[in-house]
């Protein structure tokens, strides 16, 4: 259950719309179901009251939307940012992807978002509606009269279980209390994979990646993927917008996708959230983050606006590509 309420957010947004500070509000609106909340643009208090949603399913990170929305809007845009969203926000600013002057950022606290896949594991299908009450989610299904009560902590999204920070690193105004950077266990899974034999790792990834349907959702949602022209849209790339024809294409897509955001990925977790095939993309991203921390010193993309990404930087003493395996083997 979120500590800040829907009413508080609507009040803030309505006030800023009313006094002319902002022209538009980026917020969440209900989708087909209670759990597929979708990003939306609001322009009036009426619209906000009618459609604005704030619940445990508001995982969507709006930072990336600012790239296209600020260009279309002639005034300022209000954007609500959860702590992890602010890292993406900074990263986009670092890359000069939108005009800071056109944004009014309101930081909001987050208690962690729910993962609908985990809920479905408990309640099966036929979910009619979900109420977020206290520390539990009340799930009404088509088949039962009584709602199923699920503790919110049990269905927390993976990225929230391993939340890296409750601290906002960018905002114009903050609602609620500020949190802190956390000591998360987000690299544990990566370390587990590293400890496997190459054969086991290969089998693991083959199993995961072969499910990819190349919907491109992971790329489209990613706030680090904002190139106007993407290699995956190139008709000559051989992997243009089609489901992978064989295991090579699967791997190629995933290696290149992760590589292109290496050093810029803020580990916001959006890619894994949107993947309809539940492919653990964060395990690829975090491998790069872990290696970067390990080889070149700790670096959190987006933590500081204007910081230099590790792949466009170097020192004369860097580790040699051939040594990375020794380093890993001695660490393990």
């Amino acid at each position, binding site marked *: 259950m979120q500590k800040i309420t829907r009413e508080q957010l609507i009040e803030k947004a309505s006030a800023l719309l009313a006094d002319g500070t902002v022209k538009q509000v980026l917020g969440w609106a209900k989708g087909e179901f209670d759990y597929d909340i979708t990003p939306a643009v609001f322009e009036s208090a009426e619209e906000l009251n009618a459609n604005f949603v704030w619940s445990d399913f508001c995982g969507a990170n709006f930072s990336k939307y600012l790239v296209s929305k600020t260009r279309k809007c002639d005034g300022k845009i209000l954007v609500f940012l959860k702590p992890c969203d602010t890292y993406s926000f900074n990263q986009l600013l670092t890359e000069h992807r939108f005009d800071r002057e056109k944004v009014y950022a309101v930081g909001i606290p987050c208690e962690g978002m729910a993962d609908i896949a985990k809920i479905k594991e408990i309640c099966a299908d036929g979910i009619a509606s979900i109420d977020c009450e206290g520390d539990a989610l009340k799930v009404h299904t088509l088949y039962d009269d009584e709602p199923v009560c699920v503790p919110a902590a049990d269905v927390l999204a993976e990225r929230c279980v391993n939340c890296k920070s409750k601290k906002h690193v960018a905002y114009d105004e903050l609602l609620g209390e500020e949190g802190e950077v956390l000591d998360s266990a987000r690299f544990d899974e990566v370390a587990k994979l590293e400890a496997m034999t190459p054969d086991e*790792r*290969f089998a*693991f990834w083959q199993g995961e990646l072969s499910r990819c349907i190349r919907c491109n959702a992971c790329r489209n949602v990613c706030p680090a993927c904002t190139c106007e022209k993407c290699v995956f849209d190139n008709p000559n790339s051989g992997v243009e917008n089609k489901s992978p024809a064989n295991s*090579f294409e699967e791997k190629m897509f995933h290696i290149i996708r992760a590589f292109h955001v290496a050093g810029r990925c803020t580990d916001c977790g959006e890619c894994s959230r949107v993947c309809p095939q539940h492919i653990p993309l964060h395990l690829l991203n975090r491998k790069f983050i872990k290696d*970067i921390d390990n080889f070149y010193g700790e670096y959190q993309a987006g933590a500081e606006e204007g910081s230099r990404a590790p792949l466009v930087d170097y020192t004369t003493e860097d580790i040699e*590509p051939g040594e990375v395996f020794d380093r890993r083997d001695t660490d393990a």
Partner: protein
Amino acid sequence: MQVNEYKPLIVAFCCNWCSYAGADLAGNNRLNYPAEVKIIRVPCSCRVNPMFVLRAFQRGADGVIICGCHPGDCHYTSGNYFTRRRMALLFSMLDYLGIEKERTRVEWVSAAEGAKFAATMNDFVEKVTALGENKRLEDLRCKK
């Protein structure tokens, strides 16, 4: 009976200013290195995009080696420092996906090191031969 001896296909990306000349020198000095090494000349080792490495494997390479100027000697001052970071991360990722780490390598070979060039290639080919065919990053459609 004649045994069909396995010969790996090796793609070597060689920087124009150093290793490519190093390969020339190896040739001039009549130093042997396997003919399975196919050299692709690049203006600088940092011209090699991770996609090139994957493409090489897709088109049938069993091993990919990138040769550039020694750190500090890059013709463009810093290109090879970027190569070093990029390839360290890429190779580590390939290994993470379970692809044999002996199939990829970066080596610094100057224009004067013809002997090092030949020795490097001999050693690399030997390692890759021991691994056998590249199965984990192959694209069956590209197989003849």
